[in-house]
């Protein structure tokens, strides 16, 4: 733990009293095990990804050869992957475009479905609030795979959905939901990720004090005006956080596609990554795709980190 003591800097004034009483190595030593763990198993793996993406392939063993020394990095694979994304007839071009479209549409639908529900939870559930909260949180501990399995049986040709639609006269013959329809995939994404949208929306909507709504009313705003000029502007942080929390995992989703629409024409970036890992000579490309995906998502990640830090600072100063 001596390296912790060497790196500890003088405490700020606010904590001067309590920190001066503790030995200098004391608090760093609490944080050291987890920090080391993250260094070895979170940061270092990214270096491995970089080394493989910038490495080569052993032609005889058909194995990727990581380039551990930055001096010997070779940008051929990264360039190859990049041109396959940017050119319209590239290997990964369609998958990238498709991913953005699917994620964009699905996240927007999550917002449209999730906002009214979060608003209801925060403001109108009344004495049923506890029950609705439990029901809302249930999907967080119900396995994603079980929930998708449920839809697979519901969407079969002789499944409940088709039977209901035929009974109602909307369909005459069963609709092949599971035969690689983008509609089904987007639907599955919305179903899978909408709780992640509701959560931050609920948190921000729940924080708005009723007195602010009353102020809006007293100042002459109608119900509509109060919603659009008092409630909604205060929830925009929740909307943005919801967008990010929903979209980030969706960009890495490959299993929903495999379960609900397992055809080439709905493949997403995640599928391209996973598939390239199964063939040894394609592994460097998989690593390159992961790096590109990470870089593409970095702005969203940083936005989210920045907004949570700001929210935490607000809570502290309140």
């Amino acid at each position, binding site marked *: 733990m001596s390296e912790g003591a060497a*790196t500890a*800097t003088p*405490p700020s004034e606010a*904590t001067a009293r*309590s920190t001066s009483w503790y*030995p200098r190595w004391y*608090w760093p030593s*609490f*944080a050291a*095990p987890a*920090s080391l*763990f*993250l260094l070895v*198993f*979170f940061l*270092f*793996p990214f270096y491995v990804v970089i080394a493989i993406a910038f490495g080569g392939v052993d032609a005889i063993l058909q194995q990727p050869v*990581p380039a551990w020394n930055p001096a010997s990095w070779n940008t051929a694979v990264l360039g190859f992957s990049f041109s396959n994304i940017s050119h319209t007839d590239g290997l990964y071009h369609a998958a990238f475009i498709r991913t953005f479209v699917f994620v964009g549409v699905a996240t927007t639908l999550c917002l449209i479905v999730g906002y009214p*529900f979060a608003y*209801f939870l925060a*403001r109108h559930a009344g004495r049923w609030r506890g029950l609705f909260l439990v*029901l809302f949180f*249930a*999907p967080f*501990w*119900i*396995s*994603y*795979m*079980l*929930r*998708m*399995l*449920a839809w697979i*049986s519901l969407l*079969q040709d*002789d499944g409940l959905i088709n039977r209901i639609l035929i009974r109602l006269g909307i369909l005459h013959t069963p609709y092949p939901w599971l035969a690689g329809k983008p509609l089904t995939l987007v639907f599955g994404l919305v179903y899978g990720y*909408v709780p992640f949208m509701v959560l931050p929306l609920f948190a921000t909507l729940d924080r708005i004090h009723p007195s602010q709504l009353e102020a809006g*009313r007293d100042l002459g705003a*109608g*119900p*509509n005006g109060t*919603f659009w000029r008092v*409630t909604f502007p205060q929830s925009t942080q929740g909307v943005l956080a919801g967008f990010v929390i929903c979209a980030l*995992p969706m*960009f*890495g989703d*490959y*299993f929903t596609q*495999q*379960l609900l629409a397992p055809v080439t024409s709905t493949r997403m970036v995640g599928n391209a*990554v996973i598939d390239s890992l199964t063939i040894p000579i394609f592994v460097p490309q998989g*690593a390159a795709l992961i790096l590109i*995906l990470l870089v593409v*998502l970095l702005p969203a*990640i940083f936005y989210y*980190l920045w907004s949570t830090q700001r929210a*935490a600072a607000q*809570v502290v100063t*309140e």
Partner: protein
Amino acid sequence: MSALATAPPRPRLRDRIANPWGRPRFLWVIAIAYVVWILVPVVQAVIFSFNESRSITVWQGASLRWYLWDPDSSVLHDPALQQAITQTIKLAIFTAVIAVPLGVAFAIGLHRWRGGVARTSNFVMLFSFVTPELILAVALYLLFLHSFRVIGLGTSAELIGLIVLSLAYPVVIVRARLLSLGPSYEEAAQDLGASPARTVGRVTLPLLGPSIFASAAIVFALALDDFVVVNQLSRDATTQTVSMAIYGAARTAPTPAINAIGTIMLVTSTLVIAIAVVAYRRMERRRGADAAIPVPRARERA
């Protein structure tokens, strides 16, 4: 006369959505529809685990065939399914046992430790929280395949992956608690002559009890249901988990036995969460009752 006869104009649909005081029947409909949409498929999946026939779409009478009696593929007679359950629960327990102490200690340390290194650690921790799971899983997969070959793929790799995935949860939960507690308890302990170690052991940790407990339950449930990380880091059929078994079967030919194993996991995680909620409430109440301590602000609002 006619003026009296005309009813007040019916509020427009938009007004009903927006009105924060009116009776939002419209919102009730949406909320109930949402809950039905989210949960009814799960209920259907549970019901079909009791189906007499092999079908997962046509109901042919109730039975425990897929739990107990089918000689080949019931949960009781299919060693692969049992092995998946054992592996999943084993991983979830070990993940909670390792990740929670690591995360709690990190939160306690970071609460007081200031400076560049502390800020960097904190940033990396939060970054691990928001990194898409696929990126994490692939990075660890490549790590164990091309660098840490001693560990290799398998149970240890799965466990490490799950710890990385869940480490930030106890940190976030416990730090929020520390912020709302404030420094007064620890200062009181110091004034009464407690050593640093005693202060943490006798004051800080007991005060954090409920939040530590809550994060353990969350980590356990998270590890129980994880798919992406475990699927990438598993070695072969012997390190397969339940979510992988469901995924594999769902892509090929699902039988109600898969619904049955899913139902078993559903009951397990629901029980864990329910026990956790009850115990959490009890701990909070006892704490509130036997100490005349001011209720922290964060709790008042919650």
